[in-house]
């Protein structure tokens, strides 16, 4: 089988590792570009949110390159994402592509379905469950290392002396991690990357603002979608902290660690799960405020209901906890210049707030 999968941040490097080691050929998903988006927009329903369009564009690009099977996640609950892989399948079929889409729903939703799909992939590659487990653990390690290296890059970039130097080193790091095959090599790669990033010339005397990034998972994780919000802010000298990492449940050292506590934290404002990352956006804003962050930026696809619900609750959270929130709504019409202006104005607002202490009174800004 020639397998491909969605592109989301840096995770494709670890997924590629897993699929390859299970004996399959991988068609790596290219990083989304305007061409990807154009392809997706052309064939997707106009009213669908931008993740559907971008994934469709990605699938069309990997099918052009010869992929015959696409592995993707499904979902249950009110967010439309659970419906999307089925819709993708129908659209691709209408366009004349005879590809197989394997959809993984959350395991606890249907254990039998989950394991039979993994079994299918393992058996097609001629591997055993034992080998799968070994490769899975190595790939998970790779995913963790990718996240570790990225987190470090976000800590270094606001202090860099030369704009762009961290990003350059980070791109080299991704290549190094990609090349590492065994557990030992992956751990070595981690050490090398951490050393390289720490060697980026920095000005430690800066006292950067701290901004938390919340919102819907795909636009949060995929820099092309969020107009590189993290890098843009960090190059303005702001520390950003992203609420979502794929490996976060294994992390205890970051602010937002388990989903359970997020629901509990958000409970005074929202008592129900509303699908997607809606409730997380509320809970994370509260946690960022409690942890001394200067502000929060919500990135959400246009028409994303969970984030719209969150957005309508956020002004109250913002007012109660005195933490400014900027909401950026993203679709294929969003222009970088508009996002840049709002980010600059938001950073000015936060700097003034920091200078004048508690005098400020914050609300949700943007649109």
């Amino acid at each position: 089988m020639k397998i491909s999968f969605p592109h989301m941040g840096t995770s494709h490097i670890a997924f590629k590792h897993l699929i390859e080691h299970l004996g399959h050929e991988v068609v790596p998903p290219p990083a989304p570009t305007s061409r990807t988006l154009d392809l997706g927009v052309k064939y997707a329903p106009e009213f669908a949110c931008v993740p559907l369009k971008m994934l469709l564009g990605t699938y069309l690009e990997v099918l052009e390159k010869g992929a015959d099977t696409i592995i993707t996640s499904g979902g249950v609950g009110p967010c439309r994402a659970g419906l999307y892989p089925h819709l993708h399948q129908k659209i691709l079929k209408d366009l004349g592509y005879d590809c197989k889409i394997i959809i993984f729903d959350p395991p606890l939703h249907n254990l039998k379905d989950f394991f039979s799909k993994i079994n299918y992939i393992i058996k097609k590659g001629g591997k055993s469950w034992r080998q799968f487990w070994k490769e899975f653990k190595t790939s998970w390690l790779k995913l963790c290392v990718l996240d570790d290296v990225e987190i470090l890059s976000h800590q270094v970039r606001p202090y860099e002396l030369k704009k762009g130097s961290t990003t350059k080193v980070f791109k080299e790091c991704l290549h190094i991690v990609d090349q590492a095959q065994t557990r030992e090599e992956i751990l070595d790669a981690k050490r090398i990357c951490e050393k390289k990033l720490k060697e980026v010339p920095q000005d430690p005397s800066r006292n950067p603002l701290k901004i938390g990034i919340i919102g819907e998972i795909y636009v949060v994780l995929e820099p092309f979608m969020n107009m590189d919000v993290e890098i843009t802010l960090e190059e303005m000298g702001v520390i950003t902290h992203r609420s979502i990492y794929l490996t976060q449940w294994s992390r205890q050292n970051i602010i937002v660690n388990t989903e359970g506590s997020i629901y509990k934290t958000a409970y005074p404002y929202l008592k129900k799960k509303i699908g997607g990352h809606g409730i997380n956006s509320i809970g994370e804003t509260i946690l960022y405020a409690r942890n001394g962050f200067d502000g929060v930026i919500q990135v959400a696809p246009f028409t994303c209901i969970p984030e719209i619900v969150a957005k309508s609750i956020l002004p109250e959270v913002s007012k109660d906890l005195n933490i400014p929130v900027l909401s950026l709504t993203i679709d294929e019409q969003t222009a970088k210049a508009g996002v840049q202006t709002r980010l600059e104005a938001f950073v000015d607002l936060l700097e003034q707030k920091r200078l004048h202490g508690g005098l400020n009174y914050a609300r949700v800004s943007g649109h």
Partner: protein
Amino acid sequence: MQGFLGIDVGSVSTNLVIIDENINVLENLYLRTKGQPIKVLQEGLQLLKEQMSPQLKIMGVGTTGSGRVLSGAIVGADVVKNEITAHAIAASTMVPGVQTILEIGGQDSKIIILRDGIVTDFAMNTVCAAGTGSFLDQQADRLHIDISEFGTLALRATNPVRIAGRCTVFAESDMIHKQQTGHNTEDIIAGLCEALVRNYLNNVGKGKEILPPIVFQGGVAANAGIKWAFEKQLGFEVQVPKYFDVMGAIGAAILARNHYRENGGSKFKGFEISTSDFSATSFECDGCANLCEIINIYQDGNIIARWGGRCGKWDHGIQ
């Protein structure tokens, strides 16, 4: 005598002001950008040079507006600031204690909320232009009325009609319908002003705590009908400052003045640049499928700025 230059290059107008160290406006210009920001900026500088007192020495320059980076590179700006911050600084200096700024320009509209002189919230229009000056331009054209008479006619209305203003196209059909049912022009114009304000408050002003003193600025503030409609819908007095149409440029000039006070020195290239030969070239980068349009800006044949890339490959390296 010391002067500070502020430049606001927007999509519709290019504004230049010179203030003195006590923030008195010495010169101000409001020019149409006409899609030629570099040329208009050079003309503006030439005009300023001719108008201003020869004793005046420019000690600092600030730029703002959507063309802030371009104009900053051309004149050698000390401060390049986004228009939200620039407008807030100008309004809070000109109208001490201001708590709400309503700003409507040709193609964008924004609201800025201040408390104790500090910006606490802001919003800009994103998906729709039905709350901006272009909306009025379109409808004035449809009614064959000069846009400068629009406001006075609106104030003569006795019974403003209700016009669906969510979208300029539907507003137009609704307006034609009202004409055909026999409403007079004044009432229709007043209805349009109310439609614009309703749209602005529902979109840009949604969820904002609008408290007095309220300042209304930007090109559309010249329209007395819109001011009237704001006052009617908000129930507060709305002030239009003397230099309402160049407030962004004033903000940029104030920032340049503050920058000079803190740091001294200026990167201003002088008024001579109005005769320099500026040109822009572009090429399509084929490094990836994004195919970014990279823009090079030249001054007398030397490259002074470059931008347009998504990845930063071309942005870094030119100071």
